[in-house]
């Protein structure tokens, strides 16, 4: 019995080891090391690092470029929430409750862009939306309008970059939200229909509250993944320009680390992002996890 127990313990370790090792070496230790680096002035190459205390963190909030980037990040979050969460949610409600045919077909087609690289998306949209020679610009010119040169304006560039991620993420979030809506017990819907409750009240009073946890999961995913996804079109199309106008916190971290070689600043920004995401994770656990009676463990 005792040797059996011992064997059990060895096996447990053996099965968990590969995942645990990678988690430790490539996630946990790096996070601690990034935290360490955030208190130093370093350029990624020099043999010595200078301890600077909290200065890198102070820089985040006092340096005008950093402030601009933080503000942009809020803009990104707002736009991503509308484009990648609210709109897919409305569409998934329409597909689930307002039409009776073709649901499967829409699901299959909407998901297709999720299969493609954001580099492909960025390239195609850079062509379609090219302010001088793109199809949209030419079409607008024919009917007497001009497409504003969005690469020259931080705000417009942010809208465009969000639209590109929306193209990729829309179907993915739609599928998730539709799944949530589909798991609402049919008898509740039927009961409401028997009672002749108007559809919008059914949605508002029954569907939205019941689908709260899935919606919240997608909402948080939209922020966490969206900010990371948008990195690719930023790097491919604007490189954060014009003058940091379309940069966000993740892109600015990358820029500081691997282009400007300000490792300390980059680390402080990374830790800030990490803390914000941790808060979102905490909210996710509070509202989403544990809703299932038969959670895996």
């Amino acid at each position, binding site marked *: 019995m005792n040797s059996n127990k011992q064997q059990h313990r060895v096996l447990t370790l053996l099965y968990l080891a590969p995942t645990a090792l990678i988690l430790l070496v490539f996630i946990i230790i790096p996070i601690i090391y990034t935290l360490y680096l955030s208190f130093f002035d370093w350029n990624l190459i020099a043999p010595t690092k200078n301890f600077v205390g909290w200065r890198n963190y102070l820089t985040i909030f006092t340096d005008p470029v950093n402030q601009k980037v933080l503000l942009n990040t809020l803009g990104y979050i707002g736009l991503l929430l509308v484009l990648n969460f609210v709109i897919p949610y409305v569409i998934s409600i329409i597909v689930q409750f307002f039409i009776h045919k073709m649901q499967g077909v829409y699901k299959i087609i909407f998901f297709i862009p999720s299969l*493609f690289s954001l580099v492909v998306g960025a390239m195609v949209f*850079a062509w379609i939306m090219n302010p001088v020679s793109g*199809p949209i610009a030419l079409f607008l010119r024919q009917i007497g309008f001009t497409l504003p040169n969005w690469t020259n304006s931080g705000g417009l560039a942010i809208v465009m970059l969000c639209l590109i991620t929306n193209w990729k993420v829309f179907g993915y979030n739609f599928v998730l939200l539709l799944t949530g809506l589909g798991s609402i017990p049919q008898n509740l819907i039927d009961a409401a229909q028997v009672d002749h409750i108007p559809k919008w009240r059914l949605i508002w009073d029954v569907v939205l509250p019941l689908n709260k946890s899935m919606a919240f999961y997608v909402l948080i995913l939209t922020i966490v993944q969206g900010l990371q996804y948008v990195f690719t079109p930023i790097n491919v199309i604007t490189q954060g320009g014009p003058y940091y106008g379309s940069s966000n916190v993740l892109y600015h971290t990358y820029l500081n680390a691997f282009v400007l070689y300000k490792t300390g600043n980059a680390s402080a920004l990374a830790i800030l992002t990490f803390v914000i995401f941790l808060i979102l994770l905490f909210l996710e656990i509070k509202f989403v996890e544990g809703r299932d009676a038969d959670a895996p*463990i």
Partner: protein
Amino acid sequence: MRPFKANGWHLLLLVICLALILPVLFMVANSFKTLQDSYHTMWQLIPLHPTLKNYQTLSRQVALLRLIWNTFFMATLVTLGKLSTGLLAAYAFQYFHFRGKKWVYFAFVATIFIPFTVTMIPNYLVIAKANLLNTALGVALPQLCDATGIMIFLKAMAKIPRSLIESAYLDQIPTHRLLMNIIIPILRPSIISIGAIFFINSWNEYVWPTLILKDKSSFTLPLALQNYISSEGGTNFPLAMALATIMIIVPLVIYMVFQRYILNSISNSGLK
């Protein structure tokens, strides 16, 4: 009144379908046009004078087969790594009892919420120090485990009747044989679907590879495509579109074959 209303909704949904799909169709169409044709007839979805010129130019400028092989090799490495570590870990969570299980599981799930920026500097330094820059292994190594996989496998394992596992224990079947001969065959649908998703994601991966793969001979397709947009390509979109068209074939074929599996497993990943 009713069918009219429904038709309105279908019209809206059709517009969304077009908005999502037309860019891809335009891309494929323009990849078969010359630069001049693509400028003058950019709205033409069926090229007036279809040509393979862009593809020929492309194959002269870049080692296409090498690019495809690099991408395929890296994606395969990542996929196999994630599947095997995920299966082992899920098995431990489902069938072994150990202290701190909940916490370890929580740590795995929490990795989904970690921004890549908080690990990229140390990981870059480690990969550089290990002399793995410009290698597929350098790209794959930090991402050989994936919480989503563990979650989906756990859910599938929970559906396996307890009695089946218990009788295997009574027969003294060693755990590795139980895993290989009983559990993996039962989990086949989950393995296929999550494997397909891992492969597609890795095939498209961009951010981490740009840090690790600097040498052109080690490039994957997304990096090569990016190169065409920023420098050489600049305005030669038909050429970039040809490369992008080559790039989307593999994910599309995987989707066509495993569409049902893939969509099911996306649904599952949300409903924890």
